């Protein structure tokens, strides 16, 4: 389904989704991030990219698996499987959209994760094509994506200045558009040409190049023992920014959080974990197979550009550039891949 939506009708459409939780980018605390939208008037799609990615909607940083307590000396478990309201997220950049099928693979291939899918099945992603890269660190095209990629999105909107071209891609997407009813206009002659022109222009902007993407896995494998990794991680501080903000990083830890030791009440909780933290690989013996930051940088890059390619035939990186832009010391995954490939 393809429709035209005038800029001022966007609010109307959002208001008609009143039985859903609607999220859209908002600029607060000096940064764009997704925020709950109470009314259509709150929507502002002038954003660059959000600091957090859409993975947070399906893989929240804290997921309670179940509650436990002791009743008459017997442990009792209570299910906490999420049952969220249908959720619509506006303003999703195509790089984040492309992250989603990668996450789906991880949470589906060997084991269908009920917590992930309970959220995923209720989630509708409304993408917004990037008419031009919003950061010099964008490299979606270098990893097989595009500024108007539909991959992983339910709807793709393209900004045509005074109006949006809106394309329903999935059943969920078409349903969300049908709910907008009269807010939409039919596509007229010339609209299609204009969309193509905007898309063509958006692809013409220079992006950070990755020469010979197919040769990267081999290059990484061959440089496993290279001193380059330690050199490139020389100024790494070992924080979790790169992976926590990444739209495809999905490693987690599971802990029991005891609320009351007397009643034995507590929760089993899944939280994000991070290959850059020392306890990620630390053994009980005290031995840590990835004791230094070089080996942890190698792991992050290898997972995305070697192991994931071997296991799932695609990179686990969609070129959003967050890990580059937000790194406090300028570690740049594109530069890292360039050096490894040399």
């Amino acid at each position, binding site marked *: 389904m393809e429709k035209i939506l005038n800029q001022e009708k966007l609010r109307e459409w959002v208001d008609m989704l009143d039985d859903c939780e609607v999220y859209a980018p908002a*600029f607060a*605390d*000096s*940064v*764009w*991030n997704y925020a709950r939208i109470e009314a259509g008037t709150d929507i502002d799609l*002038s*954003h*660059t990219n959000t*600091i*957090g990615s859409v993975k947070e909607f399906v893989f929240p*940083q*804290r997921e309670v698996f179940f509650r436990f307590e002791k009743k008459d000396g017997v442990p009792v478990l209570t299910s906490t499987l999420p049952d969220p309201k249908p959720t619509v997220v506006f303003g999703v950049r195509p790089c984040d959209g492309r992250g989603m099928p990668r996450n789906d693979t991880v949470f589906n291939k060997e084991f269908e994760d009920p917590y992930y899918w309970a959220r995923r099945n209720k989630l509708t992603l409304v993408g917004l094509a990037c008419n*031009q*890269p*919003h*950061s*010099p*660190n964008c490299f979606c095209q270098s990893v097989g994506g595009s500024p108007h990629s539909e991959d992983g999105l339910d709807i793709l909107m393209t900004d045509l200045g005074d109006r949006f071209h809106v394309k329903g891609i999935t059943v969920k997407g078409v349903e969300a558009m049908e709910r907008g009813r009269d807010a939409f206009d039919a596509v007229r002659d010339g609209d299609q040409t204009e969309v193509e022109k905007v898309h063509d222009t958006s692809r013409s902007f220079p992006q950070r190049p990755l020469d010979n993407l197919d040769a990267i896995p081999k290059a990484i494998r061959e440089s496993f023992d290279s001193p380059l990794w330690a050199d490139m991680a*020389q*100024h790494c*501080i*070992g*924080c*979790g*920014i790169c992976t*926590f*903000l990444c739209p495809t990083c999905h490693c987690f*830890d599971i*802990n029991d*959080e005891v609320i009351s030791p007397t009643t034995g009440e507590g929760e089993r*909780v899944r*939280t*994000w974990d*991070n290959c850059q*933290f*020392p*306890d990620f690989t*630390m053994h*009980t*013996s*005290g031995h840590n197979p990835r004791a230094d930051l070089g080996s942890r940088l190698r792991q992050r890059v290898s997972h995305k550009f070697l192991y994931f390619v071997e296991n799932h035939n695609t990179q686990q990186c969609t070129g959003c550039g967050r890990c*580059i*832009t*937000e*790194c*406090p*010391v*300028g*570690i*740049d995954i*594109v*530069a890292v891949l360039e050096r490894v490939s040399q």
Partner: protein
Amino acid sequence: MVNVEEIRDYAASLLEKEEVKAVLGFRRGSASAFAEPCTITEVGEAASLVWDPTCLNNLALYLVKDRKQQAVAKTPDNRPVGIVAKGCDSRAVGVLLQENFFKREDVVVIGVSCEGTGVVDSNKLSDKLKGKTASRITFSGADDINVSVYGDETETVIPAQEILADRCLECRAATPTLHDVVFGDTVEARDFNEPFHAAKEAESASEDERWATWEHHFDRCLRCFACRAVCPMCYCHECVVDSTTFVVTLGTSAEEKANRIRWCERSANTSESAVYHLTRAIHLAGRCIDCGECERVCPVNIPLRLLNTKLEKEAFEMFEYQAGHDIEQASLLSSFRDEDPNSFIR
């Protein structure tokens, strides 16, 4: 004006004369318009050093990292290290010396005066550009900073005072007090903000307002621990908020490891993140030299500096103590004077 050539020449001569094994400095990077840290070990690399208001990092962190690495190295290289340091960074070196992390002769401080300006605050810049990226930041003199916005051909001129970091606006010692050499003019008189201006302003809110503000911020914390990781004073091998025992020896019993007390759960929620940030702030009381790194690196922009400067304000008002200003002075928490206030003893 600081002549960057002088810094390069000095760094090169230190390396040439083998007075240091490396010089920590700034260079242009590929990731952003801000300078990135570098460690140069060859004379020829000195030419890549830069100096301008985009040199944000406190490089003292890497002195700490080096010491830690040498401590476990099979053949430790304990030769001195040179460090390019702003006024605040030099105070970090000062605190590390006070705490005997290394000795004075282990470090050559290449002081650089901020000359009455300071460094650009990336959050203030983001506010000005509404999240857009600066592709180039240049300093045109004492008053203005020129910013080229990515994807936009125009250059924006922003009055320096509007985008300099709060710590720079409040700075009392823009010229490194601890140094082996200083480049740039000594500028003491500053007419930006009074010391602790931002902390005082935050204090003036009501208790309810303050709690609402911090609840909002702690709730947003991702617990990426970048604030802790970037802090040169957070050098503990094992942190109270870590969920794992890191310092494990052959003598550590299984019980000890299994029964590690969790003061702070891994969950990033308001209560746990409050415990983390408040604990960290308390552990830095009388030690924080206000380099603002914790606040700069925060990906969700929690104003962490306010917590630390609040405690430094207490240290200053109650004990006339300023962290890192005098390396001969005993550190705040390990010293006692007869005139110290003791109203808390009843």
